[in-house]
């Protein structure tokens, strides 16, 4: 096994939250889904329909596919949020913990360069954790598709069951793309957290947050401007508008007219039509971010290499 693969396995051994936390949330989604399905079935049996059938009648294969995609996309977004929190805490902990328990001297007794060690941690955050999350997402979405599809079949329509595989494939591919661009966009944040983890003696979370807040405050006091705050905001949420096409055709309308609920969907081109890396690749934000990431990363490697604890 190559040293890099071994180093990444080590990260997964040490930081079990990387897989356990998304798994726990996935299990929770499945449990809620299962309860809801049982509820639907029970209502169906007790009340003999209760209007669900009528609503389902208004669906066609296209709309069922779009609805399935939306449901799955919601799971993907939720798991992504969980994953980002896990990643942030992982990065803050990974170089700090080994100094705190003094095991860094053991790690440093192995013939592995600091570049490789710190690199394995960044790679874990930017690539391995998203891959783990993608696998968990796919498994959870499959389970929920099966549960919901069977429930809907019971309620009178097989449309969801047949629309599922294609919808899942599209959502999974879109999700993979989103994870990839998100990792690239967040690299400076990841590298900053690594640097804080390598450098801070205590209160890593505070050290991660305070400096950017202080820069914002200083800028506001001295210049009366908010450029830095906008930069941070752009870094936190700016990737999605850049990486996805803003297509007004892709809309979902719920129409409520009295007792009659109708689902009107225009989801003509599917999710993958939204994938549009062009403006992201052309944006200075991506490349500037990568340069900043390289600086923070080098600093983190340097600090781990030359930090003398005594």
């Amino acid at each position, binding site marked *: 096994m190559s040293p890099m*693969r071994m180093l990444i396995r080590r990260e997964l051994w040490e930081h079990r939250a990387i897989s356990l936390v998304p798994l726990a949330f996935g299990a929770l989604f499945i449990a809620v889904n299962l309860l809801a399905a049982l509820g639907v079935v029970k209502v169906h049996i007790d009340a003999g329909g209760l209007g669900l059938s009528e609503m389902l009648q208004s669906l066609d294969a296209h709309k069922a596919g779009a609805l399935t995609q939306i449901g799955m996309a919601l799971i993907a977004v939720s798991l992504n949020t969980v994953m980002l929190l896990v990643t942030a805490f992982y990065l803050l902990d990974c170089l700090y913990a080994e100094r705190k328990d003094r095991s860094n001297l053991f790690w440093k007794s192995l*013939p592995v360069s600091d570049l490789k060690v710190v690199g394995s941690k960044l790679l874990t955050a930017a690539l391995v954790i998203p891959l783990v999350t993608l696998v968990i997402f796919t498994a959870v979405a499959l389970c929920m598709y099966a549960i919901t599809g069977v429930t809907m079949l019971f309620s009178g329509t097989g449309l969801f069951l047949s629309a599922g595989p294609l919808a899942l494939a599209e959502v999974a591919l879109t999700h993979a793309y989103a994870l990839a661009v998100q990792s690239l966009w967040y690299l400076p944040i990841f590298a900053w957290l690594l640097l804080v983890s390598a450098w801070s003696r205590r209160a890593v979370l505070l050290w991660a947050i305070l400096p950017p807040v202080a820069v914002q405050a200083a800028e506001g006091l001295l210049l009366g401007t908010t450029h830095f705050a906008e930069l941070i905001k752009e870094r936190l949420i700016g990737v999605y508008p850049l990486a996805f096409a803003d297509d007004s055709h892709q809309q979902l309308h719920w129409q409520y007219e009295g007792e009659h609920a109708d689902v009107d969907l225009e989801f003509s081109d599917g999710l993958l039509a939204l994938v549009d890396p062009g403006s992201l690749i052309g944006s200075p934000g991506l490349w500037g971010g990568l340069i900043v990431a390289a600086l923070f990363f080098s600093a983190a490697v340097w600090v781990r290499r030359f930090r003398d604890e005594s």
Partner: protein
Amino acid sequence: MTTLVKASGLSKHYGGAAALDGVDFQIEQGRIVGLIGPNGAGKTTALKAVLGLTSFEGDLRVLGRDPRRERHQIMQDVCFIADVAVLPRWLRVKQTLELVQGLHPKFNRSKAESFLAKTSIKPDSKISQLSKGMVTQLHLALVMAIEARLLVLDEPTLGLDILFRKQFYGSILGDYFDENRTILVTTHQVEEIEHILTDVMFIDQGRIVLDESMDSISNRFLEVAVNPDRADEARSLGPVSETEVFGRRVFLFENVDIDHVRPLGDVRTPGIADLFVAKIKEQAA
């Protein structure tokens, strides 16, 4: 003879204070060198410099390389046990073996496993579940299975009971050490290692005060227990130090003719600890 470590003018300052003050020394292959000194003398700083864990001034070569720039290459041939309790607590024993196998090209896993088989350590145990003595055994098993040229031990048996300490040095000497290996060790428990050392270096206030092989120490230093009535005679020969033990005066002589001191009382080679205390006092005077 191959020189593994060569330091000249090695210095390290913390703030204004010198932890190492222009130290020169070298370590040859096939030796077991004890680096001995009081707390804060610079022992750990010297070891850290050798291991590339700290910055320093002066010139230092370890296996012909500069530990500041070529640390991870050096670590292919250098092992160290810094303190027994530093193996990562979350690792399992078998994971530890797998990890070192994956990261150290000179690690022989079956050798480590056969060493562990002689202990009560179970492969599935977490390191946090092991006693301090068992963690040392595990660390020792790892180190013994690595084909290294230099082994650095910094207080390796701190906090262990006497059985483990004896076992530790017994394994090092019996199963590990040979003419191709070299060991650099620091410890407070000098008495326990002096019989295995081939060389000693005394370090005090960042300076080397004695750098000798054990053979030349027995030629150079003599300890004589003298009855009080002949103490003045002994003093006239210029001893390095004088102490009182059970009513007799014990003198330490350096470079003295054995025939001159033999009539005064019982002559023997001094222990490293006594020699160390005398040398430090001499420096302070």
